[in-house]
């Protein structure tokens, strides 16, 4: 067994950490306050190679291993959840489906611009009435001549309604299967397609500098060739995309937990009460010890899930476990970290306040914690089909 990270992985961590500390940290608070997505910062993250991490160089990607990609997201999330969200969704949800399921023509058309950070892609799955039950999409796409005509709406779609959005991949019902169940497919919709509108959603509690959009399809028309992969493959494509996406959400939990630990340790060592640093009171030292243990466990679990993926083995169960565990570890870590900061932890001037809010999404997005437990239960031999 080898627990050492490779040279590539260590260099990646250092490079992304340098960037996050020097370029993101100084402006993260202001972007959060103003609830502002920064195209400039996103482009600079793309220059670093953060979009298209796992895509081969011939399509403009950085061609790194999956663990390196996850380390990059972890390091961004250590400083700022919003920027980590832009990159995690940009890769796993935006670039991922086109790279893994797109035709050569589709890859050549979209990937170079996506990897260069000229445009961003969104992945539209969730609908107002189809959240956890993602298979119950109401959005329909009908084939008419050489086109698909799409009608319906999507909600909460990351990177789908900002100045950089170039394309969204949308899950829609394209017919019925032999057993009467809906046939689901994914279709590539360019941002300028006729009948398509995207509206930025405002007033988020967390990820305030990440773009979230509501999408409307009103006889939206795209060429027949925009079907992603085969007709009827949409549900499988969605499940596989979410497996990858869960690893990146787990990375955000891990990175955020590490960030909370780092600020809490620094603060608790400096803050003097009763003539001593508050970290020297056992009750506080134990909080820090508990955080350190859980972060270590979370990291081992997540890296193992990524390692399985790199080896081409099944990792659905481990991805669900890592997503669930890392987001819940961050939950406990931000809770302790705010407690250690006392009143200051409730103030927006302190990074821990933002970490506390940003954590909340992780137990909801890309499958709630309840849904992760269902996925895990299905893989560990519980009787019947867990729902």
């Amino acid at each position, binding site marked *: 067994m080898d627990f050492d990270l*490779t*040279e*590539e992985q*260590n*260099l*990646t961590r*250092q*490079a992304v950490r*340098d*960037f996050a500390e020097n370029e993101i940290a100084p402006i993260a608070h202001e972007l959060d306050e103003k609830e502002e997505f920064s195209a400039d910062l996103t482009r600079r993250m793309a*220059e*670093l*190679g*953060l979009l298209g*991490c796992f895509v081969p*160089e011939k399509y403009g990607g*950085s*061609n*790194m291993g999956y663990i*390196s990609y996850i380390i*990059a997201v972890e390091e961004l999330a250590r400083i700022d959840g919003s920027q980590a969200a832009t990159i995690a969704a940009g890769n796993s949800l935006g670039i991922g489906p086109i790279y893994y399921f797109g035709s050569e023509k589709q890859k050549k058309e979209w990937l170079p611009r996506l990897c260069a950070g000229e445009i961003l892609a969104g992945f539209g799955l969730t609908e107002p009435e189809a959240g956890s039950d993602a298979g119950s999409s109401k959005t329909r796409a009908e084939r008419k001549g050489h086109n698909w005509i799409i009608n319906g709406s999507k909600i909460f779609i990351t990177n789908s309604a900002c100045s950089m959005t170039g394309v969204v991949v949308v899950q829609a019902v394209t017919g019925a299967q032999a057993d009467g169940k809906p046939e689901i497919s994914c279709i590539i919709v360019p941002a300028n397609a006729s009948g398509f509108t995207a509206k930025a959603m405002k007033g988020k509690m967390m990820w305030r500098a990440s773009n979230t959009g509501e999408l409307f399809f009103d006889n939206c028309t795209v060429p027949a060739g925009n079907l992603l992969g085969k007709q009827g493959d949409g549900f499988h494509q969605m499940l596989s995309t979410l497996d990858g996406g869960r690893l990146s959400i787990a990375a955000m939990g891990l990175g955020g937990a590490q960030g909370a630990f780092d600020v809490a340790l620094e603060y608790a060592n400096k803050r003097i009460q009763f003539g001593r640093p508050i970290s020297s009171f056992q009750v506080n030292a134990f909080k820090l010890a508990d955080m350190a243990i859980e972060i270590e466990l979370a990291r081992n679990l997540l890296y193992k899930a990524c390692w399985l993926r790199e080896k081409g083995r099944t990792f659905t169960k481990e991805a669900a476990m890592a997503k669930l565990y890392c987001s819940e570890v961050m939950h406990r870590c931000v809770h302790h970290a705010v407690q250690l900061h006392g009143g200051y932890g409730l103030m927006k001037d302190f990074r821990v306040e933002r970490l506390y809010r940003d954590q909340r999404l992780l137990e909801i997005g890309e499958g709630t914690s309840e849904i992760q437990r269902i996925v895990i239960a299905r893989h560990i031999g519980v009787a019947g089909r867990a729902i």
Partner: protein
Amino acid sequence: MNMIVCCKQVLDPEAAPSTFKLDAANNRMVQPPEIKPVVNPYDEQAVEAALRIKDKDKAANKITIISLGNNLARDVVKKPLSMGADELILLEDPAFEGGDSFAVASALAAAIKKVGQFDLIFCGRQESEWDDGQVGSGLAELLGIPSVTIAKKAEVMDGGKVKVERIVADGYQVLEVSTPALITVSNELGEARYATLKGIMAASKKQPVVWKPADIGMDAGKVGAAARKSKIVKLFQPVKEGKCDIVSADSPAEAASLLAQKLRENKVI
């Protein structure tokens, strides 16, 4: 243009002071195991200076990095490669340990002679462990080439000369130097670029060339500590003492005169 940049692996100068440890018996600093070493920040800027020249014409310019030390961490010394440098030579051997500026400059000079072809050598203005700032000038002297220190800009001009802007107390001088030459780079050059993920992938595929003393024609018994011209008599961490007297008075004027009195008593003014 063939460029060589000398880069040293150092203790992270940003690390918390509490992690700094000395081996007083041997007059050495100790690398704490939990803290990763880094490339000396001024040396990163020296790499940046070379990269800015290379940016103008990638094919016509080549950058070779040379690092000297022992137990060099590959994921640290490869950073300049991931920023865009082409090759990495490591002078790596236990015998190289413990050298002073003269010992280091001598070994670097021997290595550079072995490389043979070079037009420009860049060094950081000083390294962050000892802050001596002598290796650059010493190296130029040993190679018999001109040097310009504390540069904030270096540009290759038509005809091959190099225009250098050199920091002085109240501004900067503009100098022209013919090649081959050595330039030491200061922080006024501006931030060094980030390593890119593509650069990291390229760097992880490159294997550094490792030279021992014998490979550069030196006797292992006459490098590093054995080649020192200077001797450290005593290395110690001064104890930080803070004493604070609060001068209080009824009016600012009275406070000022009491403060002046105190300062005079303590021979500060």
